[in-house]
């Protein structure tokens, strides 16, 4: 579930406006540098970063870390209706409903879950950025058309939007990613456009224009880089919602059709049928989702604070 809607819309706009606030004072230390300095002193940020890094490392080296083949139905023969083998030697968290090692599936599943989060967010950022730059850089009717389009997409509650797209694309590995990406697009488009508008009137843009520098160069050389920090903040926060939303779509039966491929959201929604037999099958993937989402949120929120000039005291 996501905090989409206008809360986010307004927050996006606020975030965007900050890009226009060109750093002042601090003896020539750049915004990014000073932000990084503040981040290192913030325990919340460090907690978030540690969580994120740990999970990223696990995901990256998943095949090496997993003690067993996550697909091998090793203990299937022992499974009976109403009985799933629990923890034992070689299976520290027990087996899942088809006799596969739960720990290995969680580890390998991190890869798929993070991949869905990252790919959909990157896709959302790229498309959103393109639209935002288009609107922000050209203004005029281009701006109007793009923003109306964005408004239309924003007028559908995010999960409903994702549902419509998943249904349309049919069930496959990528429809989930695309569905989530589409719900992210308007966020980033709005963010980019807002921050570009905020900078349009700023001194350095005016100065560049006065110097006769080409518009494309101003946009890509100056304005865009200055919009990056709010973008990074938003992308970090979006990663959390993307992972949670993927779980929700899996729950709605719109996830990856290849159930053998471990993914936390699918594991969680699948485990609902075995809650009375082995609740751990649901609890572990749920914990993974919660902790990762928490990690990205902590990191994102502290990044936001660090980049906020209001907090620079």
């Amino acid at each position: 579930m996501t905090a989409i809607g206008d809360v986010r819309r307004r927050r996006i706009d606020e975030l965007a406006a900050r890009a226009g606030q060109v750093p002042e004072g601090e003896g020539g230390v750049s915004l990014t540098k000073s932000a990084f300095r503040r981040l290192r002193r913030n325990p919340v940020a460090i907690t978030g970063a540690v969580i994120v890094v740990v999970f990223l490392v696990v995901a990256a080296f998943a095949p090496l870390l997993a003690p067993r083949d996550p697909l091998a139905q090793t203990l299937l023969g022992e499974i009976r209706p109403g009985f799933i083998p629990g923890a034992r030697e070689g299976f520290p968290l027990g087996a899942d409903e088809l006799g596969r090692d739960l720990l290995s599936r969680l580890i390998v599943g991190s890869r798929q879950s993070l991949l869905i989060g990252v790919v959909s967010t990157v896709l959302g950022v790229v498309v959103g950025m393109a639209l935002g730059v288009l609107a922000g850089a050209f203004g005029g009717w281009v701006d109007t058309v793009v923003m109306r389009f964005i408004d239309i997409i924003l007028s559908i509650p995010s999960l409903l939007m994702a549902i419509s797209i998943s249904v349309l694309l049919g069930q496959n590995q990528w429809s989930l990613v695309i569905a989530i990406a589409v719900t992210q697009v308007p966020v980033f488009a709005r963010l980019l456009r807002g921050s570009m508008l905020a900078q349009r009137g700023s001194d350095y843009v005016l100065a560049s224009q006065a110097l006769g520098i080409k518009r494309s160069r101003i946009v890509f050389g100056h304005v865009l880089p200055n919009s990056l920090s709010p973008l990074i903040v938003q992308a970090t926060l979006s990663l959390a919602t993307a992972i949670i939303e993927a779980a929700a779509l899996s729950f709605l039966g719109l996830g990856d059709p290849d159930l053998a491929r471990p993914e936390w959201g699918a594991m969680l929604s699948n485990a609902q049928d075995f809650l009375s037999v082995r609740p751990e099958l649901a609890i572990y993937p749920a914990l993974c989702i919660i902790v990762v989402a928490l990690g990205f949120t902590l990191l994102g929120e502290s990044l936001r604070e660090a980049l906020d000039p209001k907090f620079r005291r």
Partner: protein
Amino acid sequence: MLRFVVRRLLQLIPILLGLSVLLFAWLRALPGGPAQAALGERATPEAIARYNELFGLDQPLYVQYLRFLGRAVQLDFGNSARTGRPVTEEFLERMPGTIELTLFAMVFAIGVGIPLGYLAARRHGSWLDSASVIGSLLGVAIPVFFLAYLLRLLFAVELGWLPGSGRQEVRIDATRITNFYVLDGLLTREWDAAWDAFTHLVLPGIALGTIPLAIIVRITRASVLDVVNEDYVRTANAKGLATSTVRRRHVIRNALLPVATTIGLQTGLLLSGAVLTESVFAFGGVGSAIFDAIFARDFAVLQGFILILAVVYVLVNLLVDISYGLLDPRVRVR
């Protein structure tokens, strides 16, 4: 003010038109198209051809779209493939349940969220503050359907305190007037029915209200902290006003401004959440209907419900903008 409202209303038109095009295109783009969606299971190519001819699906797309739009304006979104009933009728029948549920969720989120956020800010840095910050972060990170399962397992199945599904105990034969069950119970003085309907709102309402609660706590806390540092509060304190007066007149009132608007803006969130919560609690509202429609591939219902919900969402946003204009004089200037 009136001009502002009228202008905003006019701005809605292109959005709604765009939405209708989008959803129309969506149904046409589905594999098999509307005929397959309607005839379902055992449709032969001949049956589909006959169906397309019968309902003008072989005409040019723009003709079909105009007809779709013409019907949509009259609130006719066709019939559900699953039940054969008009989509609008199903929506109207189910909407009261969802409104009751979202109202409960909102009251819960506000009733708990604002005091908690305010206290957290007042005791900035205390354990309460940290707990509320962590809690509000967790609240956003838990998948709603999982939370719903946990709540139901604990309070309905294990402890048996509250009902775990439905809108009304089936053995109570309550009179229906408005389809708002709690209200119906009160109107007809069937107190047990009203109370029963209310208890059915508690668990799904809490599950649904968790994310708004988390957001409200966070925003209230942040905004109280902001306001305390504002010049006018310092001025008021410096003037020697009583602490309680400062709090009441300046801190709370100004801090609640962003909170008030946030509250209005949770609609989209609640509508999304309702799909998951209602289906877990088998709560007969709009959300569970969407859930069922996904599995039955009942496209007419999906299309109609999503369109109506989007319109509701847009209108609520409009109301929020207007109220924002009323609350904050700076907006009106533009």
